[in-house]
C-alpha cells in the first residue's frame, strides 16, 4: 500500500458493522455487478485496453455512466407509471363520486356518466394509460382535482421551496455530521464520543415528525424564539428574506438532524478505521500537525464511499421532507403529496410519486458522477 493520501489513499472497509443502521444494503448501483468495460452493454475482458492517463477518460466515463443509467431509468419510470395505473384501477375509489360529493345522491346518473366520459374514465384502462403517458411526454400532467390547478403549475410553484429547504438541510447535515463524527472518532471512548454516538443512536430511533413537534414545543411554544410553521408570517403578503430565514430554521434543522444519525456514525467508524492505517502513522511520524493529519489525510480518504451512500439515502430524504414539510406547513411538493393523498387526487399524487422516483434516480446518478470525479481509480478501471 502506497502511503499517498493525496490520491485518495485506501478505501476503508465500508461495511464494517455500521452500528444501528439496520440491514440496508449500501449504495447498490442498478448496473450489473461487473461494470460495462467499454461502450455500454458488452463486456470486454479486463486489461485489454492500454492504460490511459486518468484525466482523459473522465468525460467518456461520465457519458457512459449517464447512458447506462438512462437505459435503466426509462423502463423503471415506465413501470412505476404502469404500477400506479394498475393500483388506481384496482382501487374501489370513484373520482366522479368524490367530485360530486354530497350532490352524488341527487345528481342524475346521466350527468355523472357525462362527467365520467368527459374525464375519459369510461374508456378501457389501457387507453387511459396511453393518453396519460402521451400527455406526460408532451409535458401536460393533467389537472389537480383537489387544488383545481394544472399539476405542472402546482409543481412549479412548490418545487423551489422544497429544493431550498432540502438543499439547506443537506449542507447543514454534511457539515454537522462531519464535525461530530470526526470529533467522536478523534476522542474515541471519551464521554463526548459516548454522548455523540448515543445521541445518534437515539436520534435514529426517533420519528422525524416527533422531533419536529418537540422542536416546535421547545423553541416556538416554550421559548417563543422561532415561528412554528409556514413560509412567512401570516400578516405579511410578500416573502422577505429575514422572515423566510426565521421560518426556515426549524424545518431545515429538524430535517438535517433527522437524516444525520447514519452519517455521524459512518464518519466516526471510517475515521476510526483510517486512523489505524499506515499512511496516517506515516503522516504523524513526519511531524505533521494533528489537525492536518485528521483533515487532509484521514478524513479525505475516509469519505470516498460516502458519496455513493449519500446517493442511496435520497429515498430517506424524500420521506423526511414529506414529514417535515407537513409538520411545519412548509408549502413544498412533499407536503402537497400528503394533501393529494388525503383528497385522493390521482393526477397530482401520480405526478408527485413520479417526481420522487426521478429524484432518487437522479440523486444516485449525481452521486456516482461525483464518485467518478473524486476517485481516479473508478474511471481508469472502468468500474461503472
Amino acid at each position, binding site marked *: 500500500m502506497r502511503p499517498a493520501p493525496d490520491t485518495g489513499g485506501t478505501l476503508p472497509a465500508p461495511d*464494517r*458493522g455500521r*452500528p*444501528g443502521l*439496520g*440491514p*440496508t*444494503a449500501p449504495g*447498490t448501483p*442498478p448496473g*450489473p455487478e461487473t461494470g460495462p468495460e467499454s461502450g455500454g452493454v458488452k463486456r470486454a475482458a479486463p486489461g485489454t485496453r492500454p492504460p490511459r492517463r486518468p484525466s482523459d477518460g473522465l468525460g467518456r466515463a461520465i457519458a457512459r455512466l449517464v447512458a447506462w443509467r438512462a437505459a*435503466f431509468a426509462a423502463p*423503471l419510470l415506465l413501470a*412505476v407509471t404502469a404500477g*400506479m395505473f394498475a*393500483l*388506481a384501477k384496482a*382501487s*374501489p*375509489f370513484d373520482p366522479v363520486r368524490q367530485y360530486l360529493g354530497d350532490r352524488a345522491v341527487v345528481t342524475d346518473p346521466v350527468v355523472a356518466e357525462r362527467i365520467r366520459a368527459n374525464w375519459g374514465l369510461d374508456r378501457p384502462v389501457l387507453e387511459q394509460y396511453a393518453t396519460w403517458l402521451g400527455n406526460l411526454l408532451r409535458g401536460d400532467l393533467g389537472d389537480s382535482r383537489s387544488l383545481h390547478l394544472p399539476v405542472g403549475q402546482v409543481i412549479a410553484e412548490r418545487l423551489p421551496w422544497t429544493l431550498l429547504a432540502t438543499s439547506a438541510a443537506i449542507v447543514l447535515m454534511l457539515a454537522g455530521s462531519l464535525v461530530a463524527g470526526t470529533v467522536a472518532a478523534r476522542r474515541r471512548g471519551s464521554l463526548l464520543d459516548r454522548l455523540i454516538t448515543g445521541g445518534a*443512536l*437515539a436520534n*435514529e*430511533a*426517533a*420519528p422525524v*415528525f*416527533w422531533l419536529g*413537534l*418537540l422542536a*416546535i*414545543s421547545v423553541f*416556538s*411554544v*416554550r421559548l417563543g424564539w422561532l415561528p*412554528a410553521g409556514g413560509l412567512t408570517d401570516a400578516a405579511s403578503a410578500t416573502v422577505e428574506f429575514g422572515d423566510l430565514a426565521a421560518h426556515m430554521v426549524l424545518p431545515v434543522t429538524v430535517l438535517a438532524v433527522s437524516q444525520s444519525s447514519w452519517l455521524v456514525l459512518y464518519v466516526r467508524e471510517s475515521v476510526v478505521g483510517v486512523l*489505524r492505517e499506515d499512511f496516517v502513522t506515516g503522516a504523524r511520524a513526519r511531524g505533521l500537525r494533528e489537525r492536518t493529519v485528521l483533515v487532509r489525510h484521514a478524513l479525505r480518504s475516509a469519505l470516498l464511499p460516502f458519496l455513493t451512500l449519500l446517493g442511496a439515502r*435520497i*429515498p430517506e430524504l*424524500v*420521506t423526511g421532507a*414529506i*414529514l417535515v414539510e*407537513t*409538520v411545519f406547513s412548509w408549502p413544498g411538493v412533499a407536503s402537497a*403529496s*400528503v394533501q*393529494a*393523498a*388525503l383528497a*385522493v387526487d390521482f393526477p397530482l*399524487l*401520480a405526478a*408527485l*410519486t413520479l417526481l*420522487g*422516483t426521478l*429524484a*432518487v*434516480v437522479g440523486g444516485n446518478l449525481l452521486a456516482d458522477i461525483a464518485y467518478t470525479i473524486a476517485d481516479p481509480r473508478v474511471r481508469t478501471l472502468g468500474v461503472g
Partner: protein
Amino acid sequence: MRAAAAALAALGLAVLLVPPLAQLDQQLVDLRSAGLPPSLAHPLGTDQVGRDVLLRSVYGLRVSFLVGLVAASASMVVGGLVGLAAGSLGGMPDRLLMRLVDGFTSVPHLLLGIFIVALFAPSPVAVVVSVGVTHWTTAARIVRSEVLSLRSRPFVEAAISGGASRSRVVRRHLLPHLAPHLLLAAVLMVPHAVWHETALSFLGLGLPPHLASLGNMINDGQRSLLAGDWWSSLVPGLFILVPTLALGVLAQHWRDRLTPRLRSELSL
C-alpha cells in the same frame, strides 16, 4: 444492554398486562379533565378530550406493534422467498429479480405507502400491504447475499457433488444457516414497520382515527401542542423511541454474536 432488555421487558409486560387489568377505560371521554398536565391521577396527563395519555399510549403501542409485527412478517416471507430464489437459482432469474428489487427501492418508501393507502381507504389491511410492499426488498437483499456466500462454502459444494437435489440443498443446508440472519432481519424490521405505520397514521392516512395507535395519538395531540399541552403528542412518541432504541441495542449484540470475525476486527 441490560437497560435495553429491561426497558423492552417492562414495555412488553405493560402491553400484555395493562389492557386486561386496567381500571380506566382508554376510550372514555371526560371533558371535565381535558388537557390536564401530568399529575398523580394521570401520571402523563390527559389529551384534549380527557383520555389518559399513559393508558392510551400502552394501548397504542399494542396496536402499532401488532400491525408492525404482521407487516414485518409478511415482508420477511415475501422478501425471503425472492432472495432465496434469486440466490439459489442464479443467472437470468437472479438478475431479473434483483432488477425488480432495485426498481422497488427506487420509489421512496413513504411515497409509495401513501399512494397505496390513499387509493384504498385507511384500514389496518391497507397499512400492512403498504408496509409489506415497501419493505420486502431489504429482506430479499439480505437473504440473497447470504445465500450467495453460503453457496460457495465447501459443505454446500460437497452436498451438490454428492448428488443432493436443489430442494434438498435449500432445505437441509441453506435454510438452517439462514435462519438466524432471517430472524435478526425480522426483528429489526418490526420497528421499521411500526415507524411506517406511525408515519402514515400521523399524516391521517393510516389506521382509522378511533383506534389508539401511536401515530393517531401524535396527530391528535399536534393541535393542542401550540396551546402548551406538550404531553399529549410527545409522550406517545417516547413509546416509539424507547422500544426502537432498545431493540436496536439488543440486535447489535446479537449481530456481533452471529459474526465473531466482525467482533474481533472491531475490538482491535
